[in-house]
């Protein structure tokens, strides 16, 4: 689905400074070589299975299914991966690739901190230096993850520019990469940025849907009717969708962070409120004003608090293959609490956006229909923030 210039329909491309062009070309060449290299793939599979704990479970949420009274609900438990989120899939792939390319240093941006933790983890494992850029606001919201990254040996740089959130962390990581390329790989955390990142990250995350497809066949002898995942940049969503894209009867649903609502300015729902633009190396949809200034977006979820969406999602939206729906803070927090009480699973607040939408559509679906929700990460990191949202102050 990717043409040679990394386009998904009209989206994607390589809108970056000349200084970085040879770096992305070198990365593309290396990836094209190693993606078909049996040794690389067996090393990566070994890391997935014995380090990250793959395959992740596809769990039948019996109490939730009974309670909602409609479709059968399965949870794809990416929260059970080592480091607690799907982010490790991509990071192990990129770190291994970077190592093969002779790089000794990884830099990364992070929102909620999950990608930063995963990158710091892979760097520790592979004996590489690691620097993580994190918006100053997010370092406050996710103090525990900041500590985890430092514990793993990474330097965490708080980014104070702009809104001090994920987009500013991406900008700062790009600036850092521009100043130090020869020994450094930019381990981008989502299916965004310039080509080849959207393709590389998607391929490493596609293991999610590869496993779902096999697991659901074993359990149900058929395909699911809907696959639901949360979308910021969209890496867990594209990973969950990828092997179902050609199965036209499977509804693919991405849940965007609506924040305080798509009719307010405090939202991060790109498909619902954004328009076509060029930013962070790609053409895609972005929340922006009439002059193309990027909007200061908002969501309770630091991981979905991004003004754009990956170019392949923009394309899937254009052709109508995937649906993108907004979910508010309030709905996500309700789902966060619901899953904890109903199944004994505390999802990441990001994943709770997907849970919320499943709660909305499951009751009206037939009982023989199947919904798979990707629980992209675990919610321990969010407990303090959700408590604050509910007016309770707890010390982390």
């Amino acid at each position, binding site marked *: 689905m990717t043409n040679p210039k990394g386009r998904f329909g009209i989206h994607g491309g390589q809108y970056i*400074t000349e*200084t970085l062009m040879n770096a992305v070309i070198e990365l593309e060449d290396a990836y094209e070589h190693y993606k078909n290299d049996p040794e690389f793939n067996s090393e990566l599979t070994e890391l997935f299975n014995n380090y990250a704990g793959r395959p992740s479970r596809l769990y039948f949420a019996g109490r939730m299914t009974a309670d909602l009274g409609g479709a059968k609900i399965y949870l794809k438990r990416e929260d059970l991966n080592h480091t607690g989120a799907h982010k490790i899939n991509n990071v192990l792939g990129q770190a291994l690739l970077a190592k093969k390319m002779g790089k000794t240093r990884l830099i990364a941006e992070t929102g909620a901190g999950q990608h930063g933790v995963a990158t710091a983890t892979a760097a520790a494992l592979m004996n590489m230096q690691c620097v993580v850029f994190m918006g100053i606001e997010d370092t406050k919201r996710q103090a525990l993850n900041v500590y985890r990254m430092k514990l793993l040996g990474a330097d965490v740089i708080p980014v104070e520019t702009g809104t001090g959130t994920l*987009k500013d962390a991406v900008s700062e990581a*790009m600036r850092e990469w*521009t100043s130090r390329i020869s020994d450094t790989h930019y381990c981008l955390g989502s299916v965004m940025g310039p080509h080849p990142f959207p393709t590389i990250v998607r391929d490493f995350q596609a293991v999610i849907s590869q496993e779902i497809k096999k697991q659901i066949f074993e359990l149900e002898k058929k395909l699911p009717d809907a696959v639901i995942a949360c979308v910021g940049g969209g890496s867990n969503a594209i990973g969950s969708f990828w092997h179902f894209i050609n199965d036209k009867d499977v509804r693919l649903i991405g849940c965007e962070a609506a924040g305080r609502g798509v009719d307010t300015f405090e939202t991060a729902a790109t498909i619902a409120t954004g328009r076509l633009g*060029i930013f962070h190396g790609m053409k895609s949809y972005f929340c922006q004003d009439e002059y*193309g200034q990027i909007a200061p977006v908002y969501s309770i979820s630091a991981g979905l608090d991004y003004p754009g969406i990956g170019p392949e999602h923009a394309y899937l939206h254009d052709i109508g293959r995937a649906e993108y729906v907004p979910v508010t803070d309030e709905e996500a927090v309700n789902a966060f609490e619901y899953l904890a009480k109903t199944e004994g699973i505390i999802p990441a607040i990001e994943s709770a956006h997907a849970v919320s939408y499943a709660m909305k559509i499951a009751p009206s679906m037939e009982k023989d229909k199947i919904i798979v929700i990707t629980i992209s990460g675990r919610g321990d990191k969010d407990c303090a923030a959700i408590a604050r949202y509910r007016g309770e102050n707890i010390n982390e």
Partner: protein
Amino acid sequence: MSNIHKAFENGKAFIPFITCGDPDTETTLKSVRAAVENGADLIELGIPFSDPTAEGPVIQGANLRALKGGITTDKVFSLVEDLRRDVKIPMVFMTYANVVFSYGAEKFISRCKETGIDGLIIPDLPFEEKEEFLPFCHQYGVDLISMIAPTSENRIAMIAREAEGFLYIVSSLGVTGTRSEIKTDLTKIIESVRKNSKIPCAVGFGISTPEQAKKMASISDGAIVGSAIIKILEKYGSDASAYIGEYVKTMKDAVRESLGK
């Protein structure tokens, strides 16, 4: 072809960069005029962007101050119209792809032509993506200026062969901002450019002192200075124009002294 070549017909060129609307349009008008009166050969006008990924902290600050001051793309075009009542030297815009794209590429580039903008520098539009705007640039006779970086290596010939206006040689890795020393072997890069193109080369990124400007101009056709000027604006605000004029004069004198070609 635009008028950019004229900037290089008066010996080595000195090219100051000013962010439009930092801190307000009146100051920009006064600062540009002061630069012109004191010997600037070409003016690089920045249209602010909320998230300028190629800029260091100084120019990032200018972008934010200008946006806070209420500058918009339409106001920038009005500002250019005002300047063009008396400013005769070539002027180019420096902005990010989304500013042009969002305004509508054809509308933006035709407005450039109407108001008297000679070229566009778009740091996040590399050679591979230039078709995004190039057809309109050709249609309206606005030069799309290419950049060459210390990492360009095997790409130099390809970029230089199709370059228009002047070539912007990025002196160092990293983002914009003043540097105490420029370490890149620019002579080699410029030699390689000369083999493939006849258009002038100007060096930018990291230049702030007359000595640096003189040195850079001696190996190229001119020096571009941004952050050092923005620092003057940062310090003196709406009173900056006199200081900018003085600075431009010193820098133009330094560039003029540089020999070689």
